[in-house]
């Protein structure tokens, strides 16, 4: 699997390269600033990009901007954004085009290589990987208002949706909640129905379910 990596701190870039290579990813470009990232994304068309939000030259949200621009030119280009902090505002911007292939994780998640690599693979396959912190914030907000879309869901369905928003598979949700995969499937189809999501392939519906809250 071909990966473009953008991270300005040498130690972290080096660590990520080693980590990803250990899991048989092919690093086609490892860059340290916004403009070269954009060029690499458009020229190399990687299977997935792993991008730090804050990059030179401005040290603001250069990486995020480059990823968004690249996705305009290459629709659906899978991007996993890493950051020292997560903002709902940025999560919305990343998910806004509704085409999936988006990840937004805290840098700490790299500490668990297996799960991190699973997230990278999922994003590459067109799914999502939202940091549990982002998801928690979304839920904290929505559960406060009676008019929120969450009000229509049962507590169990909310739990399933939260895990789904993180981008977990049915099997992984079943394991986390200690229920059978069959009941997870039952819950997810209830959620899709309650959120009025159109019939389409499962991965896309999962993205839409997350988007339903963001609005």
């Amino acid at each position, binding site marked *: 699997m071909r990966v473009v990596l953008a991270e300005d701190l040498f130690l972290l870039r080096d660590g990520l390269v080693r980590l990803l290579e250990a899991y048989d990813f092919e690093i086609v470009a490892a860059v340290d600033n916004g403009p070269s990232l954009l060029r690499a994304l458009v020229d190399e068309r990687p299977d997935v990009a792993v991008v730090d939000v*804050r990059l030179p030259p401005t040290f603001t949200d250069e990486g995020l901007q480059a990823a968004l621009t690249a996705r305009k030119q290459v629709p659906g280009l899978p991007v996993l954004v890493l950051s*020292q902090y997560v903002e709902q*505002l940025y999560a919305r911007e990343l998910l806004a085009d509704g085409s999936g292939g988006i990840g937004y994780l805290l840098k*700490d998640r790299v*500490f668990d290589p297996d799960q991190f690599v699973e997230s990278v693979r999922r994003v590459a396959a067109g799914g999502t990987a939202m940091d549990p912190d982002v998801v928690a914030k979304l839920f904290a*907000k929505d559960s406060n208002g009676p008019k929120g879309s969450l009000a229509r869901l049962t507590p169990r369905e909310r739990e399933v949706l939260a895990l789904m928003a993180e981008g977990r598979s049915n099997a992984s949700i079943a394991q986390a909640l200690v229920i059978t995969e069959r009941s997870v499937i039952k819950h997810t189809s209830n959620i899709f129905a309650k959120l009025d999501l159109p019939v389409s392939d499962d991965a896309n519906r999962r993205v839409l379910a997350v988007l339903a809250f963001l609005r």
Partner: protein
Amino acid sequence: MNIAKDARTAVAGLPLAGLAVVEVFFFSLLVTAISLLGAGIGLFLIPAAAIAARSTVNITRRLAGARLEGGIPEPYLPEPPREGGLKSWWARTQWILTDPATWRDLAWMLVNPVVGLVLVLLPLTLIAFGVFGLLMPLLWEDISGSGGNNWYWFVKVTDSQSALYALGLGIPTLLIGLVSAPALMRAHAQLARTLLAPTETARKVLHLTRTRSEVVSSSAAELRRIERDLHDGAQARLVALGMNLGVAEQLLAKDPEAVRAILADTRKASASALTELRDLIRGIHPPVLADRGLADAVRALALDSPLDVSVTAELPGRADAPVESALYFAVSEILTNAAKHASPTHVDVDLWYADGRIRAQVSDDGHGGADPSRGTGLRGIERRLAAFDGVLAVHSPVGGPTTLTLEIPCALS
């Protein structure tokens, strides 16, 4: 026309006239004290004389200021701390002599007994003379008989006929006295304000002195908080990490299973250290503010707030980082307060720029009753804005809704 009220106004001139006479005394006292500075003894006399003079002039400020909106505030520089010894005397004398207000007080004590006295006594004099004219038909015989002055204005009162003329002149005299009283007393008050109120520069200096000391102490408190957070949080966790790794190293050969558990713990501890650092950084300078500026930072705040907040922003550029940061934290605190106390269903935040000022308005439909004189939160926001010459306007009747408007003069880039 309200005769009783105008008469009272005219009578109010009496204490002011008395003060004017007393001020002549304090003028000479202070001037004498200053002229004795060369002889050394002035060093001890000046502060005492000045303070006595100031308390007299302060009474004038209060009495005359009552006729003007906003009154006449005191202009004096704050007193230096007393340390004792000769040096302290010198510092106090210097404090008096370098304060422009001292010299303006002196000018006032010179002008007031001349111009001021005329202004405050004229209405009362006219009224008294008018009453005298009205009584002329009763009094003229006694006055003439005792060989007193029998002129009333231009009429020589020698018989009951001319006494009636005097009565006719007495009526307008009395009326003029009454009618002119409010205007003349006001003119006196204006004159007092010109010399006794703080000048624009003095006001600025006072404001700057106050806000500077507030900024210095609040940033010192901030630094202490950050130091404590780092010390108890990230630093302690890093020490624990080091210790855990040391133990793991020791156990490596004997008990690899235990090492595995220790390493898992260590990884968790490093994640919590990161979380703590992240929260700390957010409190110092929020990442979105650094990345995107005020508008998006406030939008991010709105998203994170448990309340239903909508944000509209029309900012044609970015303000200086300190201004942005002050507004951001102010809005953040207001949203927190609203969530805590007002329980609104909806909050609107508007940001815009007009007339060289950046403004933020936060309106909620909660139950109101926010009062800067009671809550320390609003007072703190006021203080933080004051450092940038900004202001906070609070409109929060009990029962709501609440509108807070924050305003800071600044240029956008």
